């Protein structure tokens, strides 16, 4: 099971994964016109989280979060934690499928059966997981430049459309003071920055493990800056009122493009957004598949795609009765009850436990950790 990806491919999947759904929403609506600043403020926090994950990874350079948890916490508790992570990844994949199902139903085909949309999306997305990490990464490597290019073109188009962009919407700058803005935006710790906990599954697959830290920190920086630019675009085109009340501000603002024959580009936007969803779901599914395979010592996780795919499609329909409920769970309930413990508390405890153990085991020379790793 030697899957290897290059550092650049790691960068591509990290960026595309994080954009997948975070670019759809207006993050931190409480901060109003300063939301873009809050996003910038939280880049260092996202980097700290990333450093924590990488610190853990460098202690076990050949292991994933599913396999080093038992080594840290002992076989029983550790395995339980690993199973928790696998369930979390599967659940997240189900949520993303639901997000995109609702996007299609709300924005273009309201009469469509959500089951058909969910199943179609799942088949395509899980096929990515079936083909394996290397293939997903190669696809990401190709699609990332394309994505960036399309977004630059769309940004230029919207800024070229007359009477659409109003920069005065960004004022007053810092209406609230910085501490209260930081308080408003603290959920950013979990979404989008904390979601990168998934990559603890993939760091060990990078062929040049020394570069992992640099690359992943750079990915977080890139993500934060582009999300901030994106939020500026929402506020300047739609105004704070609509930007915060629109369900999909990206979709809503791109609809305003009207430049000669270039207008009504909605469907193009949806396709681009769904291509982001592809990476998100494929990587999450692949993580839960390979995690399961590592836990039960299965050689090839490939065919686990089928049961996980079915589970994801079912989860996506069962998690909420209607769209508002789904969003409330995603933005209000989950961050506290699911994301925060899984993304921050458990890795932090793991790191602390690791150091305590090392101190107990080898109190004199705890610098020689490299020799212990196989």
């Amino acid at each position: 099971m030697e899957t290897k990806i290059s550092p650049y491919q790691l960068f591509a999947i990290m960026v595309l994964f994080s954009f997948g759904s975070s670019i759809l929403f207006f993050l931190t609506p409480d901060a109003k016109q300063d939301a873009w600043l809050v996003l910038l403020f939280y880049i260092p926090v996202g980097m700290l989280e990333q450093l924590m994950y990488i610190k853990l990874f460098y202690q076990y350079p050949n292991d994933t979060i599913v396999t080093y948890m038992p080594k840290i916490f002992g076989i029983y508790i550790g395995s339980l934690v690993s199973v928790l992570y696998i369930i979390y990844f599967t659940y997240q994949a189900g949520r993303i499928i639901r997000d995109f199902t609702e996007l299609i139903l709300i924005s273009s085909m309201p009469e469509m059966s959500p089951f058909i949309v969910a199943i179609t999306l799942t088949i395509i997305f899980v096929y990515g997981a079936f083909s394996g990490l290397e293939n997903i990464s190669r696809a990401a490597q190709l699609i990332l430049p394309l994505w960036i290019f399309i977004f630059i073109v769309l940004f230029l188009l919207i800024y070229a459309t007359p009477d659409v962009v109003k920069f005065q919407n960004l004022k007053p700058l810092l209406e609230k003071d910085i501490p209260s803005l930081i308080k408003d935006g603290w959920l950013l710790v979990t979404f989008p920055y904390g979601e990168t906990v998934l990559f603890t599954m993939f760091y060990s697959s990078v062929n040049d493990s020394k570069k992992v830290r640099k690359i992943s920190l750079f990915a977080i920086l890139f993500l934060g800056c582009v999300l901030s630019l994106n939020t500026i675009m929402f506020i300047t085109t739609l105004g704070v009122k609509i930007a915060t009340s629109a369900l999909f501000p990206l979709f809503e603002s791109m609809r305003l493009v009207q430049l000669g024959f270039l207008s009504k580009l909605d469907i193009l936007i949806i396709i681009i957004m769904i291509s982001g969803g592809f990476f998100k779901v494929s990587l999450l599914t692949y993580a839960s598949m390979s995690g399961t395979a590592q836990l039960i010592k299965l050689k090839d996780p490939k065919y686990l795609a089928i049961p996980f795919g079915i589970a994801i499609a079912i989860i996506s329909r069962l998690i909420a009765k209607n769209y508002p409920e789904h969003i409330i769970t995603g933005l209000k309930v989950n961050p506290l009850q699911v994301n925060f413990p899984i993304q921050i508390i458990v890795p932090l405890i793991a790191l602390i436990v690791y150091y305590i153990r090392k101190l107990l085991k080898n109190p004199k020379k705890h610098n020689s950790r490299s020799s212990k790793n196989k």
Partner: protein
Amino acid sequence: MKKAIAFCIIPMMMLLSAGCVSKNEIENSAIIVAFGVDTTADGKYMVSTQILKTSKQSSGSGDGSSKGEKQQSDVISLASTGSTLSDALDHLSKQLGKKLVLSHIKFIVISEDVAKSGVAGLIDFTAREYQMRANIVILVTNGKASEIIKTTTPIDPVPANAIDSILNLQARYGYIPVITSLDFFNLLGSKTAAPMAGVIRLYEDEQQGKVFKLTDIAIFKKDKFIGYMTDEEAVRGVQWIRNKVKAGNIVIPLSGKDQVTIQLISANSTIKPIMKENKPAIKLTVQNKGNILDMTGDFDPMKNPEILTEFEQMENEIIKQEIEKALSMAQTTFQADIFDFGEAIHRDYPKEWVELEKNWSEVFPELEVEVEVHSNIKRTGVISKPVY
């Protein structure tokens, strides 16, 4: 064996994946290009729609004019009633066996009665409905909205396109504000600002029959219509303040019967809120460049360029008058903050705004606005001195 399975599965997938759940055939869809909203006697909404004829070839093109016939229109207009806007559109299905397509709507005409009773539901519908874009123009009419929708025009086989091209042009001239549903939504959501909309009227013309004319401003308070601003100078004043005048003419009366017309080439106005002894004030600066378009009287600007400076002074005064007329109408007649000065103050003085917002309705009529106009006349056309 593998091949046989693939052979069965692939055609099946091809059949299934080419889904047709929410298909939309062009001949089965009614593409609405504009609609008007009226009230009926029993308090319901009446929606009149302008629908493109999709089943027939476009008529009226080519040799139609040589026969001297009146150009045939490419639209049909139908009306239906319902208790809400979407309900009324739904009732169209009784008359029309086609699926409604709302994504090509260019503008919505609201009759005065509907505007008086409140447009919140209508604006919500335009924002909520997934097919409609946020850049639909909102217009108010003094008569029946259905009349506007029904009227055909010789200019374009699709009357909505004719109005749309007027709107596109008027976005640069100052005779009517072009307010989209997005603008309206944002103004409606603000606690202090008053929304407004352009007005469309029908005029009787001897040769052409009914002709559209877009003039005036309909002023709202919250979502309810309160009155028209019909004075042409005041309307342009509003547009000066909103930085929407980019073209147009300014006539300067001189001594006696002489007049000079200045054609604007470019113009720009900026609003800057200032604090004067804890009282808010607005500083409005208008800058414009123009050329002389026509002139009578005994002047020769090529020999005597100082005369242009004099004209510039007079032009400044005229623009200032227009702006002050608009301000006095908004501040005293309507007492409605249609310029969104409140938001401008909020942008620059967020701390002071917290207090001001509470009693903005008392502050706004008293608000001091300093107007400063800098006109610049650049060229005199291709001749210098008036012939006579």
